[in-house]
């Protein structure tokens, strides 16, 4: 489905004669709409749910990136250290190594959290979090936030 959508986008760009990024994007969105109309009758809803999930994941990730970045930035410039660092064991309901890798990468990319180790069975990530005033709340924040989004995209 994704391939078909990309193909439709390239076709759109070729037919309109403008090979620019914005025109390819227009083609992609139009193709997505066409596939959605066609897919409704043939019952292939998975792709559309997946695209929505990917978009939600990217938005959530960008939000975390900004919020956490500002929090760390404020802590660096103010004279007192407000942070309460902790090393937390985060359970992952991961189904594949690719998903665990993705989740670990995303957590490490978020400012103020850093993966230190992965348990041998791949079911637990050990995260150094800079803001863990309430240990359980910090753990929930990661599992219910990015953990949930990544799991949706991969399941």
């Amino acid at each position, binding site marked *: 489905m994704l391939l078909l959508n990309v193909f439709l986008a390239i076709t759109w760009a070729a037919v309109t004669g403008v*090979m*620019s*990024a914005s025109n390819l994007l227009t083609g992609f969105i139009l193709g997505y709409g066409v596939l959605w109309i066609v897919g409704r009758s043939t019952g292939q809803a998975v792709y559309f749910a997946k695209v929505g999930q990917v978009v939600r994941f990217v938005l959530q990730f960008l939000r975390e*990136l900004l919020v*956490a*970045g500002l929090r*760390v*930035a404020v802590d*660096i*410039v103010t004279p007192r*250290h407000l*942070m*309460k*660092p*902790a*090393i*937390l*064991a985060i359970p992952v309901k991961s189904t594949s190594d690719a998903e665990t890798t993705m989740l*670990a*990468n*995303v957590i*490490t*990319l*978020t*400012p*103020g*959290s*850093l*993966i*230190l*180790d992965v*348990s041998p069975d791949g079911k637990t990530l*050990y995260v*150094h979090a*800079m803001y*863990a*005033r309430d*240990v359980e709340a910090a753990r929930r924040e990661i599992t219910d936030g990015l953990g949930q989004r990544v799991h949706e995209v991969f399941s």
Partner: protein
Amino acid sequence: MMTTVLASLLAVFGTAFMILAGVGIIRLPDLYCRASATTKAATLGIGCLLAATAIHFGDLRVTTRVLATIAFLFLTAPVAAHLIGRAAYRSNAPLWQGTVRDELASRQK
């Protein structure tokens, strides 16, 4: 006009984050926090600067290169940070005294 403002804002944000990352290396108390601050703030900073470049030039050749650079940066930076953190923990780099909990300690034994 609009693009100039946006590009300038992104460039200023990016530079500010890079400066903060540098200050963070000196100010933060232990290796783990420093690694957190520098890799992340630097990624965010470079991301903003590259986005500013793409918007400023508004050219497909520049934009694709910017996107590729950001993608590879986001793929490689966390791996390096993870390895540094793991190596530090294994060689018993001390945690800051304000650290509230260490759930990895029980597993190491």
